[in-house]
């Protein structure tokens, strides 16, 4: 009981912005609003919102590795793609009966994490850091994109699943939950919405606890000064590797949910543009805080979609501009800057503040 309280106590801490009754009241309001939202909307719009939610996981993965850990990974999309294709290959071959889609989801994420373990081992135990880490991870995701792009021929298949080159893989079943009296198929509307929302809340709270724990302390210490962290007795490489693997699993979660959402995945989801976009969401929101990343990513995605609809060819240019402006005006992120400002103005500051 005591240890449970201790763990829940880590929901607040120095590594996460937002604490006290006011913050959690806002959190509860946001959660209730999110739960009630489908009742006031139509299936298509709700499905579109799920699309936004699926990207938050890869944004959080970058927040963890880059914002907290200080290692810039430019290739989170590699894990996104591996898990997405993994889910497709598994479910096309073995179907969706007996809740297999859920197993396939976990297996696909595990494969992405395993790949990250291998790649991360060579990077971190080879003491690759700084800009070189970004170069290696970017090279890996571009390589995977190139590879998948040339799999158009019929000889490229895994079991009954055709890889289909640039056209992408499609036709995999949506996530299906076995239920007495008929399985629940989570098509891209209300059902999937609650599933992804639930997962998002769990991951968000789980990461808050993780980052405020002793583990999170060391991750942040390595970002601040790896030599000092090592000389306090921490095996820096091990902590970097674990963070990287957790991040890959989160990016993989995005990949699986995206694939299940659209029943579709293509090589371009691992390409240059796809790899760069999460960096922009995270940088604009505030990479060193989970809440800022979450809010920032959803906001930027919403704006980006509106831009695509009303001025398609300028959408990406605007994204670039947004990144440049953020770096110049609020290098720690716009949302994070705003939240710090609010915290400074609020009376809770006297009891420790943010």
């Amino acid at each position, binding site marked *: 009981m005591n240890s449970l309280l*201790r763990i829940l106590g880590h929901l607040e801490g120095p590594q996460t912005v937002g604490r006290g009754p006011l913050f959690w009241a806002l959190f509860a309001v946001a959660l209730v609003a999110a739960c009630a939202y489908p009742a006031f909307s139509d299936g298509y719009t709700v499905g579109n919102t799920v699309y936004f939610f699926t990207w938050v996981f890869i944004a959080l993965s970058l927040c963890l590795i880059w914002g907290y850990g200080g290692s810039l990974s430019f290739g989170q999309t590699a894990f996104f793609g591996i898990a997405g294709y993994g889910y497709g290959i598994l479910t096309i071959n073995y179907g969706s009966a007996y809740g297999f889609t859920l197993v396939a989801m976990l297996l696909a994420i595990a494969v992405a994490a395993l790949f990250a373990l291998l790649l991360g081992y060579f990077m971190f135990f080879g003491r690759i850091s700084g800009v070189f880490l970004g170069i290696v991870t970017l090279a890996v995701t571009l390589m995977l994109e190139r590879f998948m792009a040339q799999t158009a021929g019929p000889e490229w298949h895994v079991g009954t699943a055709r890889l289909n080159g640039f056209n992408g893989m499609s036709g995999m079943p949506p996530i299906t939950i076995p239920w007495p009296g008929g399985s629940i198929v989570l098509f891209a509307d209300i059902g999937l919405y609650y599933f992804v929302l639930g997962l998002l809340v769990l991951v968000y709270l789980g990461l808050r606890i993780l980052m405020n724990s002793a583990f999170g302390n060391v991750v942040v*210490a390595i970002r601040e*000064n790896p030599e000092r962290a090592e000389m*306090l007795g921490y095996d820096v490489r091990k902590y970097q590797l674990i963070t990287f693997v957790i991040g890959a699993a989160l990016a993989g979660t995005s990949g699986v949910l995206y694939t299940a959402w659209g029943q579709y995945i293509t090589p371009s989801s691992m390409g240059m543009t796809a790899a760069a976009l999460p960096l922009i969401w995270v940088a604009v929101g505030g990479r060193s805080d989970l809440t800022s990343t979450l809010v920032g990513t959803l906001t930027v995605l919403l704006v980006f979609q509106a831009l695509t609809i009303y001025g398609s060819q300028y959408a990406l240019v605007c994204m670039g501009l947004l990144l440049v402006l953020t770096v110049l005006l609020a290098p720690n992120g716009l949302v994070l800057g705003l939240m710090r400002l609010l915290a400074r103005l609020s009376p809770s500051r006297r009891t420790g503040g943010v």
Partner: protein
Amino acid sequence: MPLLEISRLNKHFGGLHVTNSVDLALEAGEIHCLIGPNGAGKSTLFRLILGEYQPGSGHIFFAGENVTPLKSFARIHRGLSVKFQVPGVFKGLSVRQNLEIAAQRLHHGAELDGEIDRLLDFLGLADAQAQLAGNLSHGQKQWLEIGMAVSLKPRLLLLDEPTAGMSPEETHATGAMVQRLNAEGMTVLAIEHDMAFVRQVAQRVTVLHLGQVFAQGSIDQIVADERVAAIYLGQAHA
């Protein structure tokens, strides 16, 4: 048996012998100061002891164990701890969090909070605990890092210029701090240029010159040694 025993340690960068067949033995419980002109190889010797550099040849024994092949973090686990020359505090984190990160390996739960409070008192930083470590004065940063190093409860504490940039009062306070730690049983090896500090704390002094042990003895013996004065003066005239 000495706590730290360095035997025939060599390190060279290209043709430059930074550490040339150094032998050094540290007895448990002593405060030992390492002095010598710039470029004598003092900081390199620290990095070798800590495992940041691998020696070309020679061995380092700690508490009877050959630690030469061990990684840095593993040597810290054996009971070594260090304060760097340039303060290595986590600048973007609060003073309290700096100490928490250091102390959390040995302490947990409520006991950890108590240990951090004790350290804050010891360092005289209790009022500054919520500040970012990067905003501390230079002297306070040095103390904070000493506190972080001490929180590991090391058997041997390595201090690289602990009083650099401090006023005479701060230097004296640091000396008193080191003596208190030593009285609790901690062995200390300090690199220091400030002779007032060396005179205050050192029980034995080793002079390093051009990567070799040049002289060793009590502070009075070293000060009286004309050859030691010559290498310092020689450097001043160079």
